[in-house]
């Protein structure tokens, strides 16, 4: 079974980077450029994993997670936040919003896949 992943980042290069890596690893990737769009896409599709940036226009990553967790189909789904913050406070915030975990930017393609394998099998 091919896992469907939604990636959300306002930076097109990060998005492309994610998409390239994930496509290469045979995941089915959907891209979105802000939280609003991601939320809409998430409602229309049933993704197995959502990876989102935190700092985004329209709807930031943390709010996106909270909004997703309210939806029954995303209650238990893994959601990973992309963050450049190494600050533990930010991580706490991420957890409080309901994120499964985080991926620290910058990441190698390999590290990204390792992180994803933590939540998708």
């Amino acid at each position: 079974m091919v896992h469907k992943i939604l990636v959300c980042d306002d930076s097109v290069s990060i998005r492309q980077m994610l998409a390239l890596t994930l496509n290469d690893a045979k995941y089915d990737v959907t891209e979105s450029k802000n939280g609003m769009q991601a939320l809409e896409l998430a409602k229309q599709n049933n993704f197995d994993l959502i990876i989102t940036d935190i700092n985004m226009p329209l709807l930031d990553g943390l709010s996106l997670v909270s909004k997703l967790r309210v939806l029954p189909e995303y209650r238990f789904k893994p959601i990973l936040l992309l963050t450049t913050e190494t600050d533990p406070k930010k991580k706490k915030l991420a957890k409080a919003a309901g994120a499964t975990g985080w991926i620290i930017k910058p990441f190698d393609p390999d590290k990204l896949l390792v992180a994803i394998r933590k939540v998708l099998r």
Partner: protein
Amino acid sequence: MTTIDLTQVRGLFFEESFENLDVMESSLLDLEIGTFNEELINNIFRAAHSIKGGAGIFHFDDIVIFAHNAETFLDEVREGKHTITQALIDLLLRAGDILRMMLSASKDDIGYDAQIVQTCQDELQKSLSVKNIDNTEEVLAIELAPIEVIPVLKKWHIEFKPELPILQTGNDPINLFRELHELGQLKVIANTDAIPDFAELEPQSCYLSWELILHSGATRADIEEIFEWVIDECELNITESTLENQELDDEFEPEAETPIEITSEAESPLSEKEFTPLDNIEPIEPKAKNYEEVTAVPIHTPSGTNSIRVGIDKIDNLINMVGELVITQSMLDQIGENFDSSRLLQLRDGLSQLERNTRELQENVMRIRMLPISFSFNRFPRLVHDLSTQLGKQVELILSGENTELDKTVLEKMSDPLVHLVRNALDHGIELPEQRKQAGKPEIGKLYLNAFHQGGSIVIQISDDGAGFDIEKVRAKAVKKGWITPDENLTEEQIYEFIFQPGFSTSEAVSDISGRGVGMDVVRRNIRDLGGSIEVKSATGKGTKFSIRLPLTLAILDGQLVRVGEEIFVLPLLSIMESLRVQPKLINSFTGIVEIYKLRDDYIPILRLYKLFNIENTTTQLEQGLLVIAEGDGQKIGLFVDELLSQQQIVIKSLENNYKKVQGVSGATILGDGNVALILDITGLIQLFRNQTKSPPHLPFGMVRYE
């Protein structure tokens, strides 16, 4: 190992980062001193943040570090810890410049001045209200973390008791166990004591806790890393117990069934694990330090791949047009299948529809290359801000017509000339506030940048309400340079012409900004290269206005076909003023080299094209052919041709790319009958002609003195 071609993403990263810097800059310029504008500040923060994120992926560590510093400072600004002052804006503008410089350098693989980076970085750090001890290491820790794998088997005892709602954050303990299993041999013992009665059981909660025994060479950090995401949602106890190796066997061998099935999967993730450290151990030295010695050696320049962003509506339009084209084509197909004369009318309709489709398609395809001039104008608020501060002048910049679109190549090539003109206006045009006050003008000078369509061209105007040109000064300078004699009588226009001569500068002192005399001639040359022209109007004490006229596009031209002997040439329709039959009595000849035609009050030199191109079997008698009066660069010339043919749109093919640059010829095109015709460049022809007749180059063409 995952191998992905990142060059494409790399290009995207640079493009995006430069856009981010533009956003950062314009947001900074929009900030008002003393006012906290959350949206603008967020924009600025996001820009720095995105650059940092992207730079990390491509290991531009110097950029990551610098952007991180900027971001940390911006984070404080965002939290309201700093008031918005001019100094703060200036510092951040400078930081943006440095990022731009670093990005350009990384893009082209060249060095940059590491000192100014350090200075600005220090300043950013000094400005922080909460002093962070140099956190450079932390930023890079992600990459630099040394991964030592010393395979000494240890026995780890792990107690893991997750909180009830752990599943609701998408964390599944079984995934954690799988991870642990990748580190070594794992024994999992589930504790079911906490499971309540069925009636009270909440299916979404996790009631289990586990005891895990791991035999592995892994360190405590490795294990903790696996639990990293859930550490706050569980009780976790990791202890190391010393055990003899044989006990390992004892413990695992009799164990036929594991409580939770964890099989080592066929895909053997371990082999990948082995490779990961190798990749990461690669030492990453902060490049910034080395850059000073690096000289510009562009080994490979991916910047050569140029891209353009096109609005989706333009693409949709194209698709629509192609759709219509297909419909027309199938309609013509149908007519052609069993054609007889009764369907002639239908055929004609079809053909005219085809023509319309083609034209629309052509227009729309051309439009793809068109960008709004705001791409170029947008840099000016910053430039004007910086320059006027530097010069101690007060200037208000007024932009209009930013949405006027022009060809991307034209836009790019116009960028430097525009900067030059704006600098000139600020430096020489607009006066110091004191002087303006004395002259009875408002202290704040005005600089207008305006763009609009006119006929088939784009006009860009740069005007100011400054001092204007001092005609006498210009004339004096020309006399000093020996271009004219003091008593020579010249019109205003002719005097302004000197501004465009190489080596001309009226400014007494050469300033940092302009006045080195290597300007206006280059500006004009650039504009001419694009097939455009520039003119200047000035009133002493009132201001100066430069008008630049440019062709809409470089790829297509409205052409007039002319015949010389058996050859066909194309003249740009825009440069043709009139065509006439020659009246022999109006021709004057000087020393047998130059013929001048008297047209009303003008004297126009005649260029016999057949002589220039060595064409035989052609009309040599002036009165039997036609004289096409064409204008290039404010000068007129009469081109002698056999006859005028049709006018049509000409698709320009570069002669330079396919053959070589030929003076007087701007390109070639393929005619409907398959023949190649040269497109004549009037300005080039005039220069060519002038060289042949040796007239002094600085003189307006109409005033050639023949000795």
